[in-house]
């Protein structure tokens, strides 16, 4: 066995889209089971085969790369580029549709902090439970228990039920458990942004320590500064394929260029066109399209989507980045008010961002469309847009940015 830790060859993952794929009722399946043979026969008679399968999206297409032992690799890409799907496959949460991956070493995945935390249980109990869920042995957790609690700075509250914790305390404890995993290989998905600034620094320090201890880490983040600090190598994903590999520096530069290239309309579209982002508009308060945004004024972003199928759930994600690719903040329409049941046709969502206190001269955003795709997790590749703004160049503190925003859906007639 060589010093290879991870080898992926031709990994691909296909998700099916459409209402009927999320948990369906027995009645639907029964009627379908009865009607399918008839439809098949009819299709065979008419000579078209296979085109009536459910519409699909390839979240990953043909991803191949090697990671050597001890390498810390940053995975970079826009929303919906396939980063999370890749980590999910490597973590064995979901199966690939094609291709293979071989991993040498004990794997620890950190796709979320606090998985399995139960509000009724105390901090102490949750440490043990969460540790076991992350694959730690009981003896290992017991040995590290004091260290974990000290790291989280929760000595006084460790026997309090977690439901009485503030969200900061909760996240601190959750991160502390995860940070003490001893696996040779770690998959980390954007979980560092927890707690206050001081704790974030501490988390970064811990990750840095982990990275320097000869462990292999795959690290998904939108924060280019963090990636450049922690990682040695990088992989850039776009629309489900690897578009660049190499040193982290070259990958970050490649990614910045990728963000600048502005794709045209229809940039984001499912394989068969069943769902698509048709247009993205940036408007000022009067509804005029703008390229230059005036500092201090509200920002309105409208996204037109087209559905050819009814969808139970539909969500648009917008993530804003600085000119050098650091994530500023993100909006997710489904966490800003829920609505279900979308008819086929054009749907426009309007984000009104009230007080965007950006203090950077240049920024980008990308837009992702999620539908009631199986798992509600696959996303369309999305469009990157550039905004230039006239802003005072002071205080580069990204933590100050907490804009208030609203998102409203509207439908324009019945489409395809």
């Amino acid at each position, binding site marked *: 066995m060589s010093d290879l830790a991870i080898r992926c060859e031709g990994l691909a993952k296909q998700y099916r889209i459409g209402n009927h794929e999320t*948990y369906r009722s027995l*009645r639907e399946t029964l009627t379908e089971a009865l009607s399918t043979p008839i439809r098949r026969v009819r299709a065979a008679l008419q000579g078209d085969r296979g085109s009536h399968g459910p519409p699909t999206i390839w979240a990953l297409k043909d991803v191949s790369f090697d990671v050597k032992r001890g390498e810390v690799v940053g995975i970079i890409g826009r929303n919906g580029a396939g980063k999370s799907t890749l980590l999910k496959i490597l973590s064995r949460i979901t199966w690939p549709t094609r291709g293979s991956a071989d991993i040498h070493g004990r794997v620890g*995945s950190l796709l979320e902090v606090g998985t399995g935390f139960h509000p009724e249980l105390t901090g102490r109990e949750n440490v043990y439970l969460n540790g076991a869920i992350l*694959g730690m042995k009981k003896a290992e957790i017991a040995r590290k228990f004091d260290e974990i609690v000290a790291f989280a700075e929760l000595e006084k509250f460790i026997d309090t039920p977690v439901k009485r914790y503030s969200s900061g305390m909760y996240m601190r404890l959750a991160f502390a458990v995860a940070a003490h995993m001893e696996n040779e290989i770690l998959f980390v998905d954007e979980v560092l942004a927890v707690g206050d600034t001081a704790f974030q620094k501490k988390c970064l320090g811990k990750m840095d320590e982990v990275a320097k201890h000869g462990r292999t880490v795959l690290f998904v983040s939108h924060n280019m500064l963090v990636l450049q600090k922690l990682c040695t190598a990088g992989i850039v994903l776009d629309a489900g394929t690897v578009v660049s590999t190499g040193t982290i520096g070259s990958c970050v530069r490649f990614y910045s260029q990728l963000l600048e290239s502005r794709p045209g309309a229809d940039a984001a579209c499912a394989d068969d066109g069943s769902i698509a982002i048709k247009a993205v508009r940036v408007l000022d308060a009067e509804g005029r399209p703008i390229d230059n945004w005036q500092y201090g004024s509200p920002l309105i972003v409208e996204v037109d989507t087209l559905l050819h199928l009814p969808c139970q759930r539909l969500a648009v994600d917008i993530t804003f980045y600085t000119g050098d690719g650091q994530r500023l903040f993100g909006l997710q329409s489904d966490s800003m008010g829920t609505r279900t049941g979308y008819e086929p046709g054009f749907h426009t969502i309007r984000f009104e961002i009230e007080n965007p206190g950006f203090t950077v001269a240049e920024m980008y955003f990308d837009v992702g469309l999620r539908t009631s795709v199986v798992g509600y997790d696959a996303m369309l590749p999305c469009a990157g847009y550039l905004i230039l703004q006239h802003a005072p160049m002071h205080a580069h503190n990204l933590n100050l940015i907490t804009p208030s925003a609203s998102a409203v859906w509207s439908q324009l007639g019945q489409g395809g």
Partner: protein
Amino acid sequence: MATLPGEALRLEPQAAVAEPFLPLPHVAIRPARGWIPLNLSELWQYRELLVFLIWRDIKVRYKQTVLGAAWAVLQPVFSMVVFSLFFGRLAKVPSDGIPYPVFAYCALLPWQLFAYALNESSNSVVANERLITRVYFPRLVIPIAGVLAGLVDFAIAFVVLIFLMLGYGIIPTATVATLPLFVLLAILTALAVGLWLSALNVQYRDVRYTIGFLTQIWLFLSPVAYPSSLVPARWRPLYGLNPMAGVVEGFRWALIGKTPAPGAMLGVSVIVVLLLLVGGLYYFRRMEKTFADVI
């Protein structure tokens, strides 16, 4: 009860942590099609997680209920009282010469163990959606934990039975030594059905609503309120197709020893359970690769 596993249970000594010279485990990720092997050895490696999940279920349930462990006693006792009144007193259902309350309670114990375990395991996969979409572990751990969590309630309710039997002056015979086998059979029956239902539940949420109905019907198809001696002798092996018939009659036989041993009927029950269980295991494994995508 329900203390922290870290303190209470020491499953293994703190031996050999992260030996650098051991060959590293190799994980091969391939597209999965069709039937996949059960891989029970991996399940064994995750036994600590199993213990933790059982402990969590029990602990949370007792923390969230006012009466806590009392529920484990109240349910079978009240059922026993109602059964004794309506079936024993009013309907004069025969009870094979055993005082009706003991007769009913003996059957209600394994029945409630089964019904609880079935319900928990059937809903377990959907209830643990977060875990399934975020972390890898053998998915079989989840329905198994759901089934085993019912044993604690069973143990508590069992204490009542001891007092009840003492009160009626019934002393168990040597057959009581076979009781653990019937407990095992009840657990396996619940697991066998629970595996099918929990995997189906991910795909079809209708299942959730069927479970209550199913257990209700099943209760009347099992010799809980009445003895299986009411069923004509030649039909009894057929009656054994309902595995809970074998379990319930086995319980009475093991505990009291007065009723005839449930021979052929039990044999049929065991075979049915084994077939359901093996089928359920493979079906669950086959379906689990879609859990994270569909749930």
